[in-house]
């Protein structure tokens, strides 16, 4: 926990980005699982359908002791194509995985942790996962050449929103489906839609009670709940991160933390309220965002409050302001915070954290009980 900084207000300009800690799950050291999306699209199916060549990777049910990591430089767990990184992790990984069966995200999300205790056998491995980001230079063609790409794509409103690609376009385009994954031809992928681009620093001090600022190529854009809902209804992602105020970091005052928490919960309440009446979003999972900066107490409070709201998964945010500087983030700084937060979260729902980047940090994150990561680092 950090000492409060009296100066930290929401108008502060020069927040130092802080590195986001991972949450620890004191009960499980590693979680693997499979996620069924509310839309009925199963991530595992995506894998089977879109990547037949990688069958060796996926259909390992019947194969014992397959060292999948030695065959492919590409690492499904971190989504990292770098050889060095992969070598580093290889030995670790083989020993650690437990197998877990299907998690249903919709109906009370059974996170069935049937652990075989067979550490060398790798069952369907969906969690932990990194998500494929729409990265510079990487076309869909080329992406498909990479084996074992995770079947979930990460898009962010800061890039979607800015486009002159009006929301209405989504409605006009492709009658077959209006899901944004179809528009962007990511139909083989599930789509996770976050607010910010993890790789771009979010300027501090622009969030308000009524809405959160997202930063597009065209500049600042204030997003309130109404607009947020409109966009999500148009995009219809598979998983959607709730609107939140995550403008906190190591140096944030308690006052700021509380403000972030309150706003985030208020947004969530409003969103959930509208969500129920939205026909279009019945197949979209909603992830609640846990705030609380570097304060264990506030984190736990935020976690408890979010849990009572019965969302489909959790995002841990509010540790930093995104952007390249988070690369130097040291997870170990916040191990305790994460552990304590994880204690408050139900076992059976996925936990996502952005900006856990370096492969070794991803490993740490997995140990802390995080299930989903972004792939801004390798991409």
């Amino acid at each position: 926990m950090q000492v409060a900084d009296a100066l930290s207000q929401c108008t502060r300009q020069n927040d130092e980005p802080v590195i986001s800690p991972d949450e620890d799950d004191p009960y499980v050291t590693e979680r693997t699982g499979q996620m069924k999306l509310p839309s009925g699209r199963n991530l595992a199916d995506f894998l089977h359908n879109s990547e037949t060549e990688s069958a060796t990777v996926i259909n390992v049910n019947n194969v014992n002791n397959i060292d999948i990591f030695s065959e492919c430089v590409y690492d499904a767990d971190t989504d990292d194509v770098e050889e060095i990184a992969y070598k580093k992790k290889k030995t670790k990984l083989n020993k650690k995985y437990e197998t877990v069966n299907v998690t249903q995200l919709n109906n009370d999300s059974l996170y069935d942790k049937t652990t075989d205790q067979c550490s060398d056998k790798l069952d369907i491995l969906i969690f932990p996962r990194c998500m494929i980001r729409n990265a510079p230079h990487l076309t869909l063609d080329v992406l498909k050449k990479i084996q074992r790409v995770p079947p979930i794509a990460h898009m962010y409103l800061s890039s979607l929103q800015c486009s002159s690609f009006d929301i209405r376009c989504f409605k006009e385009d492709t009658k077959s489906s209006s899901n944004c994954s179809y528009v962007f031809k990511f139909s083989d992928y599930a789509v996770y839609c976050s607010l910010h681009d993890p790789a771009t620093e979010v300027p501090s001090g622009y969030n308000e009670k009524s809405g959160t600022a997202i930063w597009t190529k065209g500049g600042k854009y204030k997003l309130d709940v109404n607009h947020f809902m409109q966009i999500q209804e148009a995009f219809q992602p598979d998983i959607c991160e709730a609107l939140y105020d995550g403008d906190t970091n190591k140096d944030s005052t308690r006052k700021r933390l509380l403000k972030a928490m309150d706003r985030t919960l208020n947004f969530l309440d409003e969103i959930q309220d509208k969500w129920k009446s939205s026909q279009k979003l019945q197949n979209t999972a909603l992830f609640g965002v846990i705030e609380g900066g570097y304060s264990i107490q506030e984190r736990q409070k935020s976690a408890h409050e979010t849990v009572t709201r019965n969302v489909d998964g959790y995002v841990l945010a509010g540790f930093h302001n995104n952007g390249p500087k988070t690369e130097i983030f040291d997870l170990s700084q916040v191990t305790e915070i994460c552990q304590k937060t994880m204690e408050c979260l139900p076992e059976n729902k996925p936990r996502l954290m952005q900006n856990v980047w370096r492969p070794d940090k991803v490993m740490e994150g997995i140990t802390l009980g995080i299930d989903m990561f972004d792939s801004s680092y390798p991409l």
Partner: protein
Amino acid sequence: MTSKAHALSLKILAECSTTKARACQMTLPHSIVETPVFMPVGTQGTLKGLLPEQLEELDCKIMLGNTYHLGNRPGPELLEKAGGLHKFMNWNRSLLTDSGGFQMVSLLKLAEITEEGVKFQSPHDGSEMMLTPEKSIEIQNSIGADIIMQLDDVVHSSTTGSRLEEAMWRTIRWLDRCLKAHKRPHDQSIFPIVQGGLDTELRKKCAYELIKRDVDGYAIGGLSGGEEKSDFWRMVSLSTDILPDDKPRYLMGVGFAVDLVVCAALGCDMFDCVFPTRTARFGSALVPSGQLNLKSKIFSSDFRPIDDQCKCSTCKNFTRAYLHTIVTNETVACHLLSVHNVAYQLNLMKSVHDSIIEDKFPQFIKAFFIQQFPNKDFPQWAIDALDSVNVKLNENTQDNGQSSVNVKNKVSDSSNIENSEIS
């Protein structure tokens, strides 16, 4: 009719009964190339924006590398260690390298030309490099392309007088030095280059000199440097008249669709240009009716593919509206458009090849020109050039209806939009 077991053999599959065009099969050490062919330019060991794998998927059989740039970086020693450019860039099909001479024009400020060779200053680190004919061949030998070019004394196409004549004769002297220095005639073919600017007599002299040498093919150089089109086509036609039929003719630096079709009719077999990929990076897509500037607002809610007939992955997957959205924002747009534009060029040449085989090339030309110029405002030079090979563009024959079968016809409503976009 290639005499020895050369690194290149040309089989003429069909000759157009009207024009000078021919469809051939050119066998090279790394691939069999059907001509007329367009060769995308991979300046420094890569085509900008596309992986070699993607080029293979587009059925591209031959691409270009640039000797001057490759010689600078990574340099011949490293390329030799890597086992040649094919291996270095993971491209197992054919390659052609230029001689480095073109940079005499494009980097003239940095170059000093003497009888010995050309002295360059590296734009990368300022170091000096003496490019002699021997050096050029040495580098090209270590690059290992299937076809290599002689070092020629390139002058700007507007040059006249004694400098032009000097350059022409020097090109021939340098050719002999190149042929002498060539160490891999068994798997690399040297093409000499017809020079002589826009001077009819000099070009003729040059061409007649060159055909005395025993080589596998010829290039026509020193053109497409901004000269008048009316001069350009005459120089091309004059060169192809002299060059032997049984050897491939490579027209350097030509890549606009109209030029490709006309020059194929004038008897050229090979073309290269950075234009399709370069224009892609500026947001322009090539279509049968010209170009689409995807930056234009009119595409913001146009949910058709760039070209509904095109089989490329970009057209299969993405709409104009989507491309319009990302074209100035995301680098991915450059790649997507490059894929399409290369596919367009390759398809165009494939259609030319096929129509020559079927002996329907004149009809193809007419249908092509109608699509490019629906108001029949054909450029005069093209009318003249095609007239010289017995294709009358302005003659309204019944052929047109029939010929349109050969060329992909656009949906009529779309052609209106596109034509307004021809830049």
